[in-house]
């Protein structure tokens, strides 16, 4: 049937043909008038609505949360539980009515389909992120299957006893075996299949291997994109993929090699950094990072993992450079720290310098020499492609390269006489992490901060306040879609989402005197001390991750088509796919809920 239901859109894309036919055959079409209410908060609607054309808004207690347009599903939250929103038609709408009961039935038979509706928000975001990521096609993903190491092929006839097959695989150090039937069809059996057959199903060792093999084996062409192979593997949950050339199988691609191929490039850069014998060598390694990062962003790797890798690489570069420039006394008696997002390990690229040098009280270091080293450090980093910090938070500024005692005095001043600049600096220092030198120096300073905070009553409320500084633009899309938007739909993901989450988490962590610096680690730690409940924390972490990812995407996009530094955090609504739109909405919703909690916790409303 060729009618309107679009099966290329999640979750319908994971339905089998037969399931699609069933759904299409049961779907009535409704012509809905503006003002019509499809269902109300707390109800369990009989249908979910798939919009062919038109606009439906979803409200939760009088606040419009989102608007759904063509291709969107209204009521997805209502499948398993009473709906948390009221859906109202805003423009004349044509919608397909999908019976809730049928969707439930389909879900019972198709777990992937069901999970779309039952997953918690956070998980849904995660699923989306993966899907979004696999859409990207960049250098690394343009690699062909044959570029990766292929395991040599071993073949056995269908009647081979399992044990013999296992021995053969063992001897050839293979983890899979191609099974050939007399009629020429080929299947595949893996070590995991054999183990399961014996230990789980209790099959005798002389069972013909044919009985436990998968027929026919799914294969991929030798010149297919690596990305295709990865998709095939994830979609079908297989880790081995025989590779064909001219109709014949030439080897087996294993998931582990595919993943290895992707990440090996980062190890190469890391090795180059470690091997660098001079400031110039190091510079070359630093410049090799750019293309690597771009490739990584496209592999579908989680931003959190990318950030970890980036901060590892960045810190290694800083450490090696400091080693080249600093005299031994400084190396032993000072601590070079990175601050802000770099300290938290949430940088996704080489960005502005945000660093400080804390010199131990007892260290003997000549001031002039210190200034000289610090100035050269900053200048060299600029040549490596790390721009100056606009706020001048870097070691070339004497404010950020001085004795421990001077930093302690700063902290006392910031705590006792809170002002905007003090908060900013304190926040940066709270997020400091060691790049080189003596870690105990930073540790002592942090302990000092934690002690003083206990004595600075009401400080944390002031400190947390900026969480409310920017509005979270939820409900924003609604206006754009209705065409009332004056500024044609740009959303600041940093102000509206990333900043409130990062800063709220920072304030809560500071209150609990948590040592963790990374936002995700802080969220985990807040759960373990009982300051956040697990479910909410997981949603929060997913939301943060998603927002970072969207920002990264925008940034990569802009890098390619003319840079616009100021607009780095602005996402244009019309550039978003439907999936991204939904993900962004869900994430901002979580950010908003978190803001409310932080505001309540620190009594921000009382000011």
């Amino acid at each position, binding site marked *: 049937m060729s*009618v309107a239901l679009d099966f290329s859109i999640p979750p319908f894309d994971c339905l089998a043909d037969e399931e699609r036919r069933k759904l299409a055959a049961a*779907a*009535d*079409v409704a*012509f809905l*008038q503006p003002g019509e209410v499809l269902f109300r908060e707390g109800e369990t609607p009989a249908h979910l609505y798939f919009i062919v054309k038109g606009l439906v808004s979803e409200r939760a207690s009088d606040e419009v949360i989102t608007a759904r347009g063509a291709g969107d599903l209204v009521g997805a939250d209502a499948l398993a539980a009473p709906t948390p929103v009221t859906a109202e038609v805003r423009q004349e709408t044509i919608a397909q009515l999908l019976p809730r009961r049928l969707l439930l039935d389909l879900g019972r038979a198709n777990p992937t389909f069901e999970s779309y509706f039952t997953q918690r928000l956070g998980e849904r975001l995660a699923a989306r992120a993966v899907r979004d990521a696999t859409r990207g096609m960049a250098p690394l993903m343009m690699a062909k299957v044959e570029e990766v190491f292929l395991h040599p092929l071993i073949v056995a006839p269908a009647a081979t006893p399992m044990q013999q097959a296992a021995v053969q695989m063992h001897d050839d150090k293979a983890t899979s075996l191609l099974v050939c039937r007399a009629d020429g069809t080929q299947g595949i059996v893996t070590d995991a299949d054999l183990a399961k057959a014996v230990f789980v199903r209790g099959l005798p060792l002389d069972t013909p291997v044919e009985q436990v093999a998968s027929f026919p084996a799914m294969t991929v062409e030798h010149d297919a994109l690596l990305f295709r192979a990865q998709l095939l593997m994830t979609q079908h949950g297989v880790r081995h993929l025989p590779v064909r050339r001219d109709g014949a199988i030439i080897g087996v691609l294993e998931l582990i090699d595919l993943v290895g191929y992707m990440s090996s490039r980062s190890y190469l850069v890391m090795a180059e950094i470690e091997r660098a014998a001079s400031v110039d060598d190091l510079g070359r390694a630093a410049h090799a990072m750019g293309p690597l990062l771009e490739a990584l962003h496209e592999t579908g790797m989680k931003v959190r993992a990318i950030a970890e890798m980036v901060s590892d690489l960045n810190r290694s570069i800083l450490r090696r450079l400091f080693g080249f420039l600093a005299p031994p006394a400084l190396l032993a008696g000072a601590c070079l720290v990175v601050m802000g997002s770099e300290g938290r390990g949430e940088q996704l690229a080489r960005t502005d310098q945000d660093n400080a040098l804390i010199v131990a009280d007892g260290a003997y270091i000549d001031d002039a020499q210190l200034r000289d080293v610090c100035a050269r450090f900053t200048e060299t980093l600029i040549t490596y492609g790390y721009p100056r910090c606009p706020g001048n938070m870097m070691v070339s500024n004497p404010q950020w390269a001085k004795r421990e005692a001077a930093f302690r005095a700063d902290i006392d001043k910031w705590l006792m006489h809170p002002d905007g600049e003090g908060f900013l600096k304190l926040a940066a220092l709270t997020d400091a992490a060691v790049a080189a030198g003596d870690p105990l120096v930073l540790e002592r300073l942090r302990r000092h901060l934690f002690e003083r905070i206990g004595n600075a009553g009401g400080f944390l409320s002031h400190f947390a306040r900026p969480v409310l500084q920017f509005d979270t633009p939820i409900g924003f899309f609604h206006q754009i879609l209705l065409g009332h938007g004056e500024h044609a739909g740009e959303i600041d993901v940093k102000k509206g989402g990333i900043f409130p989450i990062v800063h709220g988490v920072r304030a809560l962590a500071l209150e609990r005197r948590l040592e963790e610096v990374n936002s995700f680690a802080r969220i985990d730690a807040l759960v373990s001390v009982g300051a956040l409940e697990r479910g909410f924390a997981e949603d929060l972490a997913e939301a943060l991750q998603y927002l970072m990812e969207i920002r990264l995407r925008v940034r990569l996009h802009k890098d390619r088509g003319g840079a616009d530094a100021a607009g780095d955090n602005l996402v244009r609504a019309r550039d978003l796919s439907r999936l991204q739109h939904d993900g962004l909405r869900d994430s901002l919703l979580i950010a908003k809920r978190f803001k409310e909690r932080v505001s309540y916790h620190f009594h921000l409303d009382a000011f």
Partner: protein
Amino acid sequence: MLEFLRRSFDRRLWARSRLRDPDYGFLFEQEHPTEVVVFDTETTGLDRKRSDIISLAAIRISGNRLLLSHHLELVVRPSRAIEHAAVAVHGLRPMDVAGGLPAREAVSQFLHFIGTRPLVGYYLEFDIAMVNRVMRPWLGVGLPNRAIEVSGLYYDRVMRDRSSRDALYTGTIDLSFAHILADLDLPMLPAHDALNDALMAGLAYLKLTLSGGRGPE
């Protein structure tokens, strides 16, 4: 008015008296109070005297809903070859319809499906004539159901809009299906598939009967 009602009622009675098969008496019962049926046919050609139905689709409409979940979609085996020009229109080749139902069997299913519901369609006259070509020699009567022509509804709507805007109307009204759909801001599904055509005509019918104005200008 009364006179007209009486006469049309008489006509129904008269038609009923000519019905050869009492099993189809249900067609002459009282008109269904709430539902209508939108339907469309694809044929071997465009000459209503010499063409046969090769596919037929019908969808009931209740309130604001097209009951797609209870639609009728039939492939009919024609008694003559499909003209090449017609194949180009609907894409149904002789081999596609070879396994279809005999025409009377198809029309019988259709009649039970529509009952006494009024019929809705675009250029409905043609589709009704095609069904009647099967019915008359067999049952002695044609379709007695009231017919609602979508292009007629559209014409009335445009005339009303125009007369309210400017007193004097000059020019012609484009009554092509594509134009009507576009003007009503309705989605264009792949056309010349009986079910899709019926669906689009149904949407146009709902829009013209339910909604206050035309689509956003």
